[in-house]
């Protein structure tokens, strides 16, 4: 099949970007979206042009590196799918596909489709952990954890930090990401002691880094490739209020 690609090109963070159009024949329905970009890049290089820069690594939906706005949606049309998992069989022959980087003030463009998501790391550094030194833990079964809590922790810890939630949100809010982490850690007795500090610091960091506030549009949940539920945001709000009350 054939596709027409309208791709955002931007040399670096200081340059102005613009869309370029490329045509690609001979793509196959079972190719992944990034394999299609690989093919485009091979072609561009051979023609003496600059290949399109994009982030990727695992190519199986788990590292969170990839993240592209496809036809106006983060990671494209498919439900619960990362860009690397998306297959061309989801597109029509001859279709024009618009490809852009995440757009959010807190995620500046580095080059082409690559953005800087280090703000997420800074939020985690502000308390997204349980403080325990290596070698200081007791036996893993010393504190039983109800299966339900372990399951909720698992579901929320499956956030891959891709940033689609931010990209999807009209306020560029990082609430879903932060809420996933808060909910994950809130499931364990070990994490309780520093919970008030954690939530206050993480929320403050998020605001400081230029993420917008949450106005409950639910776009994040709809676009999250890992199905993180916005019920986590309610949990975050509860944790936050209870932490504030303790002040």
């Amino acid at each position: 099949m054939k596709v027409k690609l309208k791709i955002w090109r931007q040399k670096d963070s200081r340059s102005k970007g613009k869309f370029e159009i490329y045509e690609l024949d001979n793509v196959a329905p079972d190719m992944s979206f990034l394999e299609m970009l690989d093919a485009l890049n091979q072609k561009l290089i051979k023609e003496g042009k600059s290949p399109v820069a994009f982030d990727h690594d695992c190519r199986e939906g788990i590292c969170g590196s990839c993240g592209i706005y496809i036809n106006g949606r983060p990671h494209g049309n498919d439900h619960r799918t990362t860009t690397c998992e998306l297959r061309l069989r989801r597109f029509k022959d001859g279709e024009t596909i618009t490809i852009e980087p995440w757009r959010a003030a807190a995620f500046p463009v580095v080059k082409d489709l690559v953005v800087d998501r280090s703000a997420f790391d800074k939020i985690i550094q502000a308390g997204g952990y349980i403080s325990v030194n290596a070698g200081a833990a007791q036996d893993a079964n010393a504190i039983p954890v109800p299966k339900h809590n372990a399951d909720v922790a698992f579901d929320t810890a499956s956030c891959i930090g891709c940033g689609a939630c931010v990209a999807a949100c009209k306020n560029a809010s990082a609430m879903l990401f932060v809420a996933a982490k808060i909910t994950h850690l809130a499931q364990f007795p070990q994490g309780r002691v520093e919970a008030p500090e954690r939530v206050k610091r993480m929320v403050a960091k998020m605001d400081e880094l230029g993420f917008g506030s949450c106005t409950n549009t639910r776009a994040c949940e709809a676009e999250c490739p890992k199905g993180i539920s916005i019920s986590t945001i309610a949990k975050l709000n509860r944790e936050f209020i209870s932490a504030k009350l303790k002040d």
Partner: protein
Amino acid sequence: MMSKLDAKIPDGPLADKWTNHKAKLRLVNPANRRKLDIIVVGTGLAGASAASTLGELGYNVKVFCYQDSPRRAHSVAAQGGINAAKNYKNDNDSVYRLFYDMLKGGDFRAREANVYRAAEVSNLVIDHYTALGVPFARDYGGLIENRSFGGVQVSRTFYAKGQTGQQCLIGAYSALSRQIDKGTVTMYPRREMMDLVVIDGKARGIIARNLVTGEIERHSAHAVVLATGGYGTIYYLSTLALNSNGSAAWRAHKRGALFANPSFVQIHPTSIPVLNDHQCKLTLMSESLRNDGRVWVPKKKGDTRKPNEIPEEERDYYLERRYPAFGNLVPRDVASRAAKERCDAGYGVGPTGLSVYLDFRDAIQKKGRKYIEDSYGNLFEMYEKITGESPYEVPMRIYPAGHYTMGGLWVDYNLMTTIPGLYAIGEANFSDHGANRLGASSLMQTSGDGYFILPYTISDYLADDIRTPKIPTNTPEFDAAEKEVKERIDRLMSINGTETATSFHKRLGKIMWDYCGMVRNEEGLKKALGLLDELKEEFWKNLKVPDTANEMNQELEKANRIADFLELGKLLVYDALNRRESCGAHFREESQTETGEAKRDDQNFAYVAAWEFAGDGNEPILHKEELKFEYVKLQERSYK
């Protein structure tokens, strides 16, 4: 020829070696730790665990990775689980049994003392991850669940559905983040280590490239730790993350670190088969699937019926038939070769004939769909996304793929390479796994190395360095290393040929897979040497790298890594040629039993092959570390 290799294995009974050794290792007092710089390259489970722990201890740590965030290191992709000898199931597991299974799984080509220690610290690893909030699967009583995994008869594998690697890495990354916040660890993401700097025979720093700006940077330290993972992507198609590479280890090798058992590569039996030729990777389907999935092919050659139309009596459950004791749970090398054997004989399924079925029909009938969903839900989803078929309805198709590298930099018991001050941990070293790794032992080993072994052993080395001031980066050694890096980049940029780095990678991968893959023979290996020389020559004549070196340039990144792979590939071949025996995942056709199983030769090959770099284009020099087995009897591995 012994010379260079002193493994420094402590005396005393096996079970006491580590305890006794620890008691003798020297310490660095907390006030001095702050003055000591340590570089850690890599943020997988090995690197993140080492960096965070060294940070907790108060050392001044700099940590590097080429991803935009440490949370994305390749360890994130591990699916099945992590082992520990907790004996939570009361099924008579023990440190000794885990040790024994690993050694046997490694076909007796690993060091007893190291493997025992890895098993010994495994329990601490699980305790620590649990304390960090890693959500291991739990039962209704709130206790941790275990499953059996990869050819063992006890349930000792801890897991978080099919995302064990991600869940553990998020834990390790969060601990690392805590240290970054405290300022004990400085994180350098989007940096690639380009070379190692050796001063007066000691590792004292690295040259890195800033992958955003292209800037070449110098970083110095009192010691350097490589936690850079495996080199399985040498096959082009593999189960690894695409950017995984062997460059850091290879540069260290060229600077004097010996490379051990490079040809020991595990081929994983259950990956999604090659579907087409645009494919850039082969996605692994966790081996835990073999707990409930049954492997089969049609009894009739070239049977093109749909799998569900093939009646029971016309199916050949060949693993259950050939290996009644272990059935579908035979170790990976055995399962891989058995699949290849059936496909080569013409019984393979799918459009290419290069796959076999992994069928859940019976398990779904017996245990219910819910159980299968709970255990493997996300793996099934992944499979369906890629192939467009639901494994709940039709059997999966699987085939072996390059997966895990058991070779790596040679290290002694302290995890130090042959360059003083240079350590290698996790998959980047060779130490624990021998010829064929036992499933779920890698996460355990990488984490154990980083949390509980390296932090102790490195202090013994650093104790001599407490008076050494900060290592300056304006020395001739840094100048020279930086110059070499820049020249090489210039050279790559100026070839201006017609072929892309990827096209060379594909061709390299094919040579490696055909001649140094699942099975090897002398003739093929010799042929590969020539082919690799030719390819390397062509690479340096006809490569094309677009754009410039002073910007983000992903093609240049690839080119640099392929240049190293072309050389490392040859070392793999030399190593495979030298080892005229079959052991574990290394299967030399010349050395097999009458029934086609791997035939070891303990008389002549019970050694670690550690290779010394002898200059570009020269044959590497072999050093042998004899393996002594004092606590286990060398046994034939039989799974019948």
